[in-house]
């Protein structure tokens, strides 16, 4: 055994799948600390006491039972939208279209509930399927353009977000406007049987289970199935994948569509869990925050869960800033962006190390 070999044997990394666990947590913590430090400087420039701000955000989110429940409420759209980014990311695709897929999923779910004429108990499953199909089909446009035409999926998915929002607007301002309402751009209210049941606290709906199932499924598929293995090969080296007989185009297409379907389910969960009707502005940048959470979480299920909880807490805490400190609610966007930058900057150099 040569020296180099000896070195390698002694290192003894896990022989299958998993990454080392502790490193990411440490870097995660450091990055968040650094981001809060810079955020504090921004607050000081504004003449606000950063300690008060952080205290207030903590109290409003993690510090009370109400706050903790609200974080779980946010975990639903954030977690699902992050999964919608992470699944395509594992085969090397960048899905910036979560926002649009979310809207189309909400639209399809609303259509199924209001216009299918299905009986009450069938409404929720029907809406779930419709939301997934809607978001998946919307992402399918992106996937098709990519696979058949070589169109960059980051750009096409981003641009389709604006189309999706206008598409939904057309329906709620036009054909789907509630005829018995006060002429606002709202669809008719959903029947009670179409609303997701609350499973925790006052506002946490059954959709929290969708998040859990999604995260666990992603973990199991990636680690224990051939599809997951081949998807990781496609993401790791598409040229080698192609030369190993893996149908690369099929994986790209499928991953994008699955991502879109998950975002569509997030849209469905929003209209059937929170809004109770289709209207403009149902997403408060959920698609984009999900994008940040996916990158922050390294496109891995556990990382996504932590990142989505973190952004949920920041988002809930941010709402309190408006009331408590008279700061604009968007102040927390600065913090979210800073965290992402810090994490991206703290990543280890990914390009080949080689010897």
């Amino acid at each position, binding site marked *: 055994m040569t020296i180099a070999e000896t070195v390698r044997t002694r290192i003894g990394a896990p*022989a*299958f*799948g998993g990454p080392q666990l502790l490193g990411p947590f440490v870097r995660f913590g450091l990055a968040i600390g650094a981001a809060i430090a810079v955020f504090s400087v921004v607050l000081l420039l504004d003449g606000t006491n950063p300690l008060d701000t952080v205290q207030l955000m903590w109290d409003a989110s993690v510090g009370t039972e109400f706050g903790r429940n609200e974080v779980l409420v946010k975990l639903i759209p954030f977690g699902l939208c992050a999964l919608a980014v992470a699944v395509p990311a594992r085969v090397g695709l960048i899905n910036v279209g979560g926002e649009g897929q979310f809207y189309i999923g909400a639209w399809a779910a609303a259509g199924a509930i209001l216009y299918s004429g299905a009986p009450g108990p069938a409404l929720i499953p029907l809406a779930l399927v419709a939301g997934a199909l809607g978001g998946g089909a919307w992402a399918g446009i992106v996937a098709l353009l990519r696979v058949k035409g070589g169109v960059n999926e980051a750009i096409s998915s981003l641009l389709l977000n604006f189309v999706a929002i206008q598409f939904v607007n057309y329906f709620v301002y036009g054909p789907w406007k509630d005829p018995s309402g006060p002429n606002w751009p709202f669809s008719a209210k959903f029947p009670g049987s179409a609303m997701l049941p609350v499973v925790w606290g006052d506002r946490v709906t059954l959709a929290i289970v969708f998040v859990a199932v999604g995260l666990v499924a992603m973990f199991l598929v990636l680690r*224990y199935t051939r599809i997951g293995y081949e998807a990781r090969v496609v993401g790791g080296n598409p040229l*080698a994948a192609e*030369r*190993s007989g893996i149908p690369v185009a099929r994986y790209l297409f499928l991953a994008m569509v699955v991502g879109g379907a998950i975002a569509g389910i997030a849209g469905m969960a929003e209209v059937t869990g929170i809004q109770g009707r289709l209207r403009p502005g149902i997403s408060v940048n959920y698609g984009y925050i999900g994008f940040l959470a996916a990158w922050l979480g390294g496109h891995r299920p556990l990382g996504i869960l932590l990142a989505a909880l973190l952004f949920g807490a920041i988002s809930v805490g941010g709402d309190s800033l408006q009331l408590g400190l008279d700061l604009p609610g968007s102040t927390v966007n600065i913090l979210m962006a800073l965290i992402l930058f810090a994490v991206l900057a703290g990543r280890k150099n990914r390009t080949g190390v080689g*010897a």
Partner: protein
Amino acid sequence: MTAPVLAAPTLRPRGAAPALSARGLSKRFADVVAADNIDLDAYSGEILAILGENGAGKSTLMKMLYGYYHPDAGHLEVDGHAVRFHSPAGARASGIGMVFQNFTLIPALSVVENIALVQAGRGLRLDRRRLGRRISELSDRYQLEVRPNAIVRDLSVGERQRAEILKVLASDARILIMDEPTSVLAPHEVESLLGILRRLRDDGYAILLITHKMREVFACASQVTVLRRGRVIGGGPIGDFDADSLLRMMLGERQDQTAAVESPPAGPMGPGIRLEHVSTSGTDGRSALRDVSLSVPAGQIVGVAAVAGNGQSGLADVLIGIGKLKSGAVFLGGDNVTRASPARRLESGLCVVSEDPVAFGAVGAMSVSENFMLTRAPVDGKGRILRTRRLLAAAARLASRSPFPMPALGRKLETLSGGNVQRVVIVRELQSHCRFLLAYYPSRGLDVASSRAVQQMLVDLRAQGAAILLVSEDFDELRALSDEVLVLYHGEVVGTFGRSAVDPMRVGQLMTGGRAA
């Protein structure tokens, strides 16, 4: 800006201090000593060959000399003055230049622009004309033929290497470290590189040549230092050694493995790999295949001799089935697979050791065991669910059958050297499931013992009835193993030689375009 246009170092008499000298260099990684108390002296006007197997500590030593690594102990002197390098920039400032195995040129820029980059420290303005003059003087003087205004992406491997050397010379290096410079070159390019090295030597450069090819050592080295397991085992003036004694020092107790591979010619055993009038459109700067017909019967090895960029790269995609043929047909074992998917072809027993295993044959972010699964056999869960434990056991069995040491199964491939990635791919592909094999440079980057082992694996596969198409840059290897040798030039088969009729001169002429000799 008034430095002389051409600054060749002056030849120092042997009595003077060595241009570069190392005393007691040591480097540990974790609890392993990669370099142990190494001494060496490189004199101006001499070529010092540094010989050693993979993992003998050559790379570690070079990285210490070039300022990448800090030695844990020991010191360096340049021209008799103690130096300490904190980075490669420090080494460059002391006149040390390194020509890397994988080049460091930027593909999108021209040769001149690439060279200008390393001159960036000398003022803001780029004097193209002056630099161009300097480059052409250097290239005339040392016959480093490069088109200065060509874009690097369009250059052949040999030209890139010459540009790389020019880049180092143009930054006034006087001590050149060459890291296995011939491993990427075709036979005739090797000759011209050795000529260049000799001219540089005669002009007073001190050259450290890292290699494991004996022939090159005897062709140009003045001194030799042999490393084994991080230590200097021996060395001295080249005249004191012959190939056998150097090999013995390099390999230690394992020298018996270097005996020539037994290669009894076997008879053909039925249909193997066959191409009929195959033409492709070249992509990515690779040259196209033009009306190529060839046949490798089962139980035979057919060698392909070609200078880089003459169509041999395209053979892999044709056999695997990536991209469309312009015309022609592909047969494996008598079946027409022209329209079959890559997966079907691989399942029928096609195996490929690709031209660039890191780019085409492996996944850097995955472990050795996961890479063993890549082409399904022999480590495979055919099912939809991966039986992790069973796969790991299969991977361990595969690694234990390997005739050379394998990296730990859990190592990610991106942390391995090129030679070790090559070993992973070879161990995966050269197994009993393999009925049709296309192997590019199978022994590239491997030390002598591992190369022999790979050649033995090829011969064993042939004995089991595999049809083997062997593309190699090592002409001796081609000749020793092949039942037939084809020459490709500009995508066409321009010559075919039977086992006993291979004439190196004639092959060389055909490879470089001389049809009528």
